[in-house]
């Protein structure tokens, strides 16, 4: 099976792109496709679009404000189906300065440049820190340990006041490389529970620092989507756990206690 998704995109500015998605593959294989159902970001209307035009290679055109992850459900004439995943990549044209956002952009688009990349200083890994008010003190310690590793800590409590919290927090989670949740209570804050669920949905490496008597199952997360460690780890153990977490690839599913 060689089918995959390809894209064309043009910057229509300001901060807006027009794009076309289509299937790519061997002619014979494309001939066996009956229909493609494009599953777009939920902000598109419609966000589920059926295309059965073989001549365009099942092309779908649209426009929008930023990159997003999408799926294509490919139905073969045999009745068999498969699902492809794709990250739409949108670039600013050369010499275009990305405008200041009026709110956090949907997804930062990489600036295109003919300059060679700067010297190899990797960007800091981003750690999203989720906690309820009862864990403020421990959160400060986790922040300190993460920053000692050079990580940038993303804390929704530091969002600019007045922003739509749920959307801004979701954006912050998407930008993160890993997530730590502080779980000291069997009845966690509804915000913590929501952030943990989002982290799992986004397949972020997730570490729950939990109290001795606290059962992570109270969060309702699928098993194998997170790792756990004791909430009272000393600094050295916490740094080691965070280092391991930050080095975990995005889609790796964890299942063991740290």
């Amino acid at each position, binding site marked *: 099976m060689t089918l995959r998704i390809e894209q064309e995109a043009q910057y229509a500015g*300001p901060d807006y792109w027009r794009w076309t998605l289509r299937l790519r593959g061997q002619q014979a294989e494309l001939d066996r496709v009956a229909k493609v159902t494009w599953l777009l970001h939920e902000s598109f*209307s419609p966000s589920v679009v059926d295309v059965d035009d073989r001549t365009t290679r099942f092309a779908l055109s649209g426009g929008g404000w930023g990159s997003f992850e999408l799926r294509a459900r490919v139905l073969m004439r045999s009745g068999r189906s498969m699902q492809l995943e794709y990250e739409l990549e949108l670039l600013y044209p050369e010499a275009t300065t990305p405008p200041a956002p009026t709110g956090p952009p949907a997804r930062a688009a990489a600036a295109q440049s003919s300059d060679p990349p700067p010297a190899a200083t990797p960007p800091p890994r981003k750690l999203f820190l989720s906690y*309820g008010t009862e864990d403020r003190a421990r959160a400060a310690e986790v922040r300190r340990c993460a920053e000692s590793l050079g990580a940038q800590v993303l804390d929704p409590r530091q969002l600019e006041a007045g922003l739509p919290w749920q959307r801004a927090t979701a954006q912050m989670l998407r930008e993160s490389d890993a997530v730590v949740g502080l779980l000291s209570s069997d009845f966690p804050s509804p915000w913590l529970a929501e952030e943990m669920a989002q982290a799992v949905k986004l397949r972020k490496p997730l570490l729950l620092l939990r109290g001795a008597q606290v059962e992570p199952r109270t969060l309702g997360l699928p098993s194998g989507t997170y790792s756990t460690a004791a909430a009272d780890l000393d600094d050295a153990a916490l740094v080691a756990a965070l280092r391991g977490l930050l080095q975990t690839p995005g889609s790796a599913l964890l299942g063991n206690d740290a």
Partner: protein
Amino acid sequence: MQQVFLSYTFNPHPDHEAETAALRRRVGMVIESMDLREVTGEDLAGGGLTPEIRARIEAADSLVALLTPHNVAGGVKMAPPWVSDEFAHAKARGKPAIRIVHAELTAGGMYASDEHIPYAPAGTADTLIKLMRTLALWKRQQGRPTQVEIAAGGVELPFDPGQGHRCDYQLFADFKEGDWLPATIWREPGAMYAFLKGVPDQSKLRLRMMLNGAIWQSDFQNPIGRVHLSKRTP
């Protein structure tokens, strides 16, 4: 309503450290349990009504002030003056605000006659229940945070995120049009949204944007789904 500014002292009187910490913790948990977010000035070090603190209070939807003993003057236990200042600032800005007043203090100052919730360390449950009812009332009065998709009926809005366009909304209820209130513009990959801090049940709303010197506005409509703007002549 979604954000509550929590005003309290970071340096309580030594005799009241544990109970102040416990009260602050429990009040924070109540706020979060009501599906609200607490905002504090903790990372700004506190200790005065600085411009940064003012801005946070103004951006929050309401304020809860914990008046607990901070120092002793003339043999009388006093609350920190900045907590009262923060409370007064919220009231002056028309924000719902309430004080939780420790039993060893009196609720003085310009807003002394305002309703407050008494707090005695032995009766915390009563205090927290009264706070929950207060927050529930505020949520009902202010309405729920709402987002609507901004559309222009097939026409492309001349929207430039670099221009900092202003977006406002106005509510209509009980045969009255409210004031224009600021909305936050939020873009997602496939649509642009206006985020409205509070829309009470049964209200209709209309949206207005200034784009390249022109007014784009909707009619009053239900506060769900898409709002269609059209260009209006002044």
